[in-house]
């Protein structure tokens, strides 16, 4: 149905909650198997798309090791976020596999991947806006049954502004502060790997620099970070590994410096 009236009932906010239901299917998921991949987190030869639609990723490979920051860059519609979602289990892979810490986790659902040690920060709707900063962090640690105060202190040390605002609803914070809450929430599970989907989207350049500094600090604690970025030049500056995707394929791969120096990459993505 595509006529003007087909969705009319759902637009009546007095009976239908505009938030609708979540997009992640909670059921399903298999078990993890041992993997032979050498990288700590790797998505290898990933091919697939959303639902029954056409493939968006074609043999795409991304990996990251402890202490590293890996950045996925590329033009609009290159499948950067899709690659990230594929690694996180939010779309069905037709081919390829994902491994984390010696385990093949291709069959796991997103929630099971969180349990397995993945911390994921979505690009949008990545905080609980109606809850306080502290409650956001508490919810981040929901799967943990042990004492979370130590981890919370660490997050506050990393993001001092959050400590000052911990009793304030997260929705009242500025864009940069919200991103800090989002990253802090993901860190609360003590993840083995942190995945950030465009952490600097919609923040000012000054805030962006500050966020990158914070991300480097998180990386120094030893957590491997995989990041999708729109601001390619700045992101590659801090990247140990860079992946340039074009139309769902690996176009260029190398260290951040190599890619920045590569004349072809400069010409096509970095504006000369």
């Amino acid at each position, binding site marked *: 149905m595509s006529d003007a009236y087909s*969705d009319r*009932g*759902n637009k*009546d*906010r*007095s*009976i*239908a*909650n*505009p*938030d*609708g*239901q*979540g*997009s*992640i*299917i*909670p*059921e399903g998921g298999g078990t993890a198997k041992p993997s032979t991949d050498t990288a700590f987190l790797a998505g290898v030869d990933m091919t697939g798309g959303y639902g029954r639609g056409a493939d968006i990723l074609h043999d795409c490979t991304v990996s990251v090791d402890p202490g590293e920051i890996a950045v996925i860059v590329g033009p609009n519609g290159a499948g950067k976020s899709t690659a990230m979602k594929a690694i996180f289990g939010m779309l069905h892979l037709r081919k390829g596999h994902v491994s984390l810490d010696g385990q093949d986790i291709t069959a796991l659902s*997103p*929630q099971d991947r*969180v*349990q397995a040690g993945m911390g*994921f920060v*979505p690009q949008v*709707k*990545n*905080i*609980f*806006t*109606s*809850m306080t900063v502290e*409650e956001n962090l*508490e*919810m*981040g640690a*929901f*799967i943990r049954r042990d004492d979370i105060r130590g981890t919370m202190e660490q997050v506050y040390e990393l993001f001092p502004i959050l400590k000052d605002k911990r009793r304030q609803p997260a929705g009242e914070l500025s864009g940069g502060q919200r991103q800090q809450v989002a990253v802090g*929430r993901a860190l609360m*599970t003590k993840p083995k790997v942190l995945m950030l989907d465009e952490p600097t989207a919609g923040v000012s350049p000054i805030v962006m620099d500050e966020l990158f500094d914070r991300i480097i600090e998180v990386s120094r604690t030893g957590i491997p970070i995989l990041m999708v970025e729109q601001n390619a030049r700045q992101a590659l500056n801090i990247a140990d590994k860079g992946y340039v995707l074009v139309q769902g394929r690996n176009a260029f791969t190398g260290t951040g410096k190599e890619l920045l120096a590569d004349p072809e990459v400069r010409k096509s993505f970095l504006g000369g």
Partner: protein
Amino acid sequence: MDLLNALVALTNFVVIPAAAYGAQLALGALGVTLIYGILRFSNFAHGDTMAFGTMATILTTWGLQAAGIGLGPLPTALLALPVGILATSALLLATDRMVYRFYRAQKAAPVILVIVSMGVMFVYNGLTRFFIGVDDRTFSDGERFIVSARDFRDWSGLDEALAIKTSQLITLVTAVVVVAALFWFLNRTRTGKSMRAFSDNEDLALLSGISPERVVTVTWLLVAALATVAGTLYGLDKSFKPFTYFQLLLPIFAAAIVGGLGSPLGAIVGGFIIAFSEVAVTYPLRKIIGYLVPESLEPGGLVQLLATEYKFAVSFVILIVVLIFRPTGLFRGKSV
């Protein structure tokens, strides 16, 4: 001019009944708002859920009365309340497993769930009537008044009397206790916070390891308790008739929307706003005005702004005004 008498008459005929009615609506609206926030649809079966819970409580009350067990001055129904809540919880959870879970798994659009809840409403409707019939039932026992009209008149020496029914006081006390417990649960406990998180952002809640099925189950349990308490209090205060409970749906929805769907605090405030407007508009104010103005200005008519038969129009008008001028409700719920 007799300010004191006017005040007593106003309290007796408007303030006390409206406060009790408001508390009942607030408890009902809390259930509606919880389902809207977490299951993301407006539950049209809520009125009949209240009726079912009340019915279960009444049947238990009769059993207790036959066995000679009572609470002395307090109504026996209070003792039967936990049984009613248990029965309603079982019904709601069974409905969720058999009906709503199917649509949840399909990620059905909210409006489909609304229509589904209408179907559930008709089933509950029949279920309640099948067990207890369609007639008016009175099941309150124990002491009828805490302050009787005559006692008050003897004590104060005023012309006007003030009476407080036991059911009215019980309603207010119970509502305060239930609401305090609910807010404590939602704001202080791990499970309560996970419910708020789920209501705020379902995907992120899932990514944080919060189990949707568990949140949904706890929600239904809370709704069962709220609906049964609200229905029983209403039945004690007035009387139990399945059709009346079905009709309560309108003021309850009005209360939830006026306060802001999805906001528990809004549901409470909305309940009282609707109740006070309904009672104030349908009560003949002639007596009260008579005390306040000189004899020459006394109104000839009843000064009843609206006949009681039209009391539902009050909820409707408030609902429409709020939807036009402040669609998110007073407390910024989720509706836009």
